[in-house]
Every structure is written in C-alpha cells, then in structure tokens.
C-alpha cells in the first residue's frame, strides 16, 4: 500500500522535479521564470506531434526541446534583451503556448481539446532486475518510465553544476549582485539567456514525461499548473537543489494521495483540491518559519 503510493508519488513528481530543476537555474540568476508552465505545455505538444509523425521517441524528445527553446528565445528577447517585465513576459509565453497548441490542434487535425492516436508512441516502463532484490525501496523506484531515472540523474547533475562549476558560480553571482558580476567581466545577459534555455530543455523533458510517459496523448492545458507548482517547490526549497527536489517530491506525494482517494467513494473534485491546499499550507509554513528566523536576528526585512 505505502509502496504503491510512493511509487505513484515518484511518477507524479517527475514533471514537477524536472521543471523545478530547470527553474532553479533561472531562480539562481534572479530571473523570475513563470514561463515554465508554457514551455512545458509546448514541449508536451511538440513531443506528441513528433511522435505521431515519426513514431520515434527520440525525435519526439528533440522536437519537444526545440519547440520549448523557441519559446525560451521569445522570453529572452522580450524579457532580457528588451528588458521587459519577467512576469508579464512569462504570462505572455503561457497564454501564447495555450492558444497556439489549441489552434494547431484544430487547424491541422480538426480536434478540439484532446489529441490521441494509436500512432503516438510513448515511453515504455523500464524494469531493472537487481532492484527486485532490495526490499521496500526496490518496488518504489522500479518499473518507471525512463524519464523518472533521467530526472534523478539530472538532479545530481544540477547540484554539481550549480555548486561546483565555474558556470554555476557565474549564475549565482549574476543572481546575487548583477552590478558586481558585470564589474568582474561576467557577461550577465549571456548567463541569463543560458539559464532560460536550460530551464526550457528541462521543461521540454517534463512535458514529454506528461504527454508520452504518464499518458500517450495531448490534452489542452494538460500541465494544469505544474509550472507554478514547480516554482512553489523552488521557493519552499529556498533555492537549494536538494530542497527543491524534496518539495517537488512532496507535492507529487500529495498528488498521489489525491489519486488514491479518488478510488474510494469520495467526490473527485473535492479530493483534487488536496494538492493545491497542501502547497499553499506548505508555502505559508515555510514563509512563517523564515520570517521568525529573520526576526530572531533582529532584522525585520530580508
């Protein structure tokens, strides 16, 4: 029972983890990236289209990354080069992505809302034999879509890049003090650009995981706020890799509880509120703890 819930948690958490790890780069570079949602959606859509057209999952992933990067380019041009407001630019990416996916769906395929077809090839779950021998942990992390394992590897990579490479230091320097970073010769805009592209790549993977891993179809607005949940995970994790991962997993856990309760005789819409309420509660607790910590040191503001 518990194993099954945790197994589902890992599955539900993966898109959040991927998007949050991508958002972590932009967060560190002090770029508030609410376009995660839109980039994930366009990734999911492009992945499904490419998979439908070619039947090849790798081409699907590349297509998803390409589409997501194009939207990241838009974000960069308007948000960074032209110095637009990040929140407004991100909002534009999200609305544009939602509009474009449903427009293309209707014009090219005459479908509304949902696009599913037997020709769409999804990822197949991976079974790792030696995990069978490990009790409890084994059943939880076995038999997932490959993207789940990729996400774990990426989390380790992100930790390493952000904390132990020159690039990671540059990113943090840009985020903490832009003027100082500029003064020592870091190309601030180039760093910011690159972080948005990285977040786009990871969001594309998250989107592919949604549309080709958990399901093999595209549903309008299928990201369903996961980009913002990823942001919440980053805020709760206070911008650390481990914290972000833990909170992403926690939010996935709330989602899996919700899925399990739906099997019982409780109205679906009532149960579906659980993850969202949970996130608000966690955000407020983390915020309150931080506030108390700040007051202890006699500093009222950050």
């Amino acid at each position: 029972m518990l194993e099954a819930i945790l197994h589902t948690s890992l599955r539900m958490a993966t898109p959040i983890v991927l998007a949050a790890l991508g958002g972590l780069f932009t967060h560190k570079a002090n770029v508030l990236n609410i376009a995660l949602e839109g980039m994930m959606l366009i990734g999911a859509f492009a992945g499904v289209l490419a998979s439908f057209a070619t039947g090849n999952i790798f081409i699907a992933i590349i297509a998803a990354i390409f589409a997501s990067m194009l939207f990241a380019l838009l974000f960069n041009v308007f948000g960074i080069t032209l110095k637009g407001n990040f929140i407004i630019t991100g909002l534009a990416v999200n609305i544009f992505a939602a509009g474009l996916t449903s427009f293309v769906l209707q014009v090219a395929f005459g479908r509304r809302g949902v696009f599913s077809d037997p020709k769409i090839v999804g990822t197949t779950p991976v079974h790792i034999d030696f995990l069978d021998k490990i009790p409890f942990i084994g059943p939880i992390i076995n038999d997932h879509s490959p993207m789940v394992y990729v996400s774990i590897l990426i989390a380790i990579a992100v930790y390493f890049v952000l904390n132990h490479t020159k690039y990671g230091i540059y990113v943090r320097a840009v985020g903490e003090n832009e003027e100082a970073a500029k003064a020592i010769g870091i190309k601030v805009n180039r760093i910011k650009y690159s972080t948005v592209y990285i977040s786009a790549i990871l969001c594309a993977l998250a989107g592919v995981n949604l549309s080709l891993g958990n399901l093999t179809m595209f549903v309008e607005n299928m990201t369903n706020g996961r980009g913002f949940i990823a942001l919440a995970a980053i805020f709760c994790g206070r911008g650390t890799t481990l914290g972000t991962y833990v909170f992403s997993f926690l939010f996935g856990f709330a989602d899996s509880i919700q899925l399990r309760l739906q099997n019982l005789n409780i109205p679906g819409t009532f149960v579906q509120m659980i993850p969202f309420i949970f996130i608000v509660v966690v955000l407020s607790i983390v915020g309150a703890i931080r506030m108390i910590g700040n007051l202890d040191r006699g500093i009222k503001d950050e």
Partner: protein
Amino acid sequence: MAKINYKQISKKVFYLILPVIFAFLVGAILIVVSGHNPIEAYGAMFRGALVGKSALYNTLFSSTPIIVTGLAIAVAFKANLFNMGVEGQMYLGAFAAAYVGFTLKGLPPVLHVILCILAAVVVGGLFALIPGVLKGRFNVNEMVVTIMLNYVAILLTDYLTNFVFYSGEGYAATYPIEQSAYLPRFMKTSQLNWAFIIALIMACIVYYIFKYTRLGFEIKAIGHNVSFAEATGMNTRNKAIVIMVVSGMLAGIAGAGEVLGVHHRFIAGFSPGYGWDGMTIALLGKNNPIGILIAALFFGILKNGGSTMELMVGVPRSLISIIQGLIIFFLAVDYLNTEFGFMSRLKLMFRRKVRG
C-alpha cells in the same frame, strides 16, 4: 502639471496601439498558414462584432465581465502585486451571489440584487485575504499562492455545485436564483444586462479611488517604489493586504454579474478565463480605468467577433488567445521608459558608433 502634454499622450497611445498591430500581423500570418484569407477572417470578425444593433449589444455584453476583472487586476498590478487569483475569487464570488440568490425568498428585487452582490464582494474579498495575509505577514510570493488558490476555488465550487446544491437538470448547475435577484436585460435578442452598468460604475469608483483617495495614492507609491513608500512611514505590509482584498472584492462583483445577469444560476466552470483576460486588459489599459474600459471593449469585439469568424471563415477562435499572448509580449517592454527605451537604445548605439 496643469498643461496636458498632447505630444506625450499621442506617443503613449502610439506605443499601445503598436503591439496590437504587431499581434494582428502575426495572427494574419497564422491565418495564411492555416489556409485562409486574413482580410476575410478579420473582416468577418469585425463585422460580426460591430454591424447591427444586437451585434453591438453583444460586444458590450462580452466586455462586461472583463471590464471588472481588468479593474480588479489593475488595482493590484498598480501596486506591483500580482494577483493572478482573480479567476478563483470571481468563482467564489459568483457562487456566493448564486447562494444568496436561491436561498433568500420573497425579497423586493433591488434589495435582493444588492444583497447578492454584497455576498459576492465579501466572499471574493475574504478569499483574497489569504494571499494578502501571506504576502503581508510572511512575504510569501502572492503569484504562486493565488494560482494555487484558483484551482482550489474552481474545484470547490464544482464540488458544491455537483454534490450539495445540484439542481438535477443534467448539467453541473445549482438551483436557479429567484426572479427578484435577476439583473434585467436591455433587449430580447441580446444578453446585455445591467451588469454592464455596474461594470461602468465600478470603473468610475476605481477612477475615483486612484485619483482622489489616500488608498489610491498609497497604491501608486507602493507601485513606484516599495522601499521609498516604507521609508516615508507607510505600513506597506498592511497595505498589501488591503489592496489584495479590494482586488478580490472587485473580482467577486465580476462573478456576481455573470450569475445575476446571464446564467441566473451558478454553473460549474462557467468562466472561459475572464481572470486571465483581465490581466491582458489591465496591461493594455496601463492600469488606468479609462484605458481598461477601452481595452475591454476591444477584447469584447475580439471575443464576440471571434465566434463569427470561426463560423463564417473557419478560423478557430483560439486565434484570439494567440493574439492576446502576442499583445502581452509586445506590452511587456516599456518602450516609453527613456532609460531602457527601444528608440533611445537605438540612438545610443548610433551615437556610440559615431564617437568611434
């Protein structure tokens, strides 16, 4: 101050119309790609929205809820608070209005309508109090909280509609409200109703708040520079709460208008994203009530004409949201701000080259 700088204003208007033109051009490319004629499609859209009395009325009708959500968002945006929860606050406000509408019986019409709207105002404001307090007290990012609460509000009203107050009429709706709570319509062939007048009144009230009240001044001060506002002795934390609540109250009114004027019951998932439209409108109207009215009328044309376009020419209505997204892109950039202005950047580049 007293002199109106017409050159400055015309420049401002030019930079607001420019994004719209750009967005329409990109939209035209998409229409061509999808195999239609853009002139025909846009022609059908504007004809469908503007030709004939009932078409005009329907355009005003389409712009009614988005005027109010636009105002709700502008109140918060102007203070740099990103209340993205207008959608959810509107849902709960609408439900409260419907609840008062079908539970209280035998009231005189005007009183009943006022009570329903008051209920919506209170509930919308209370729901906005949550992100307000979290922002003001714990400095929690209001954007994420409001978006999460949107889902809560939509799901909660969906649950209440389907399981507690279900009318049993085959679709997810509550019992109908009493006739005394109806907002009357102006003509039979259009759904335009008194909610539009209420929306106009709200625009006047917000205009008054911005221009003549202390709250309006504080909103402006916080929006310009929080630290400075705090340094002058303003309690910006409490003000953030107040501003969020005012924004939520307006959102509640938007919901009440839909219930009392259009559906006459609460329908689960009734909003096609009025809260999000409000954001575009607040941005396009530069958080100015008059600008918001114009922007909302413009979007009323797009929305009302969009269905005609889909029907007559076959271009999907989702083109409207693409145009909306594109407009926001171009609006995100502050072309007017001389320091970062697009034109002055070009000039600067040119000057650098001349100097060598």
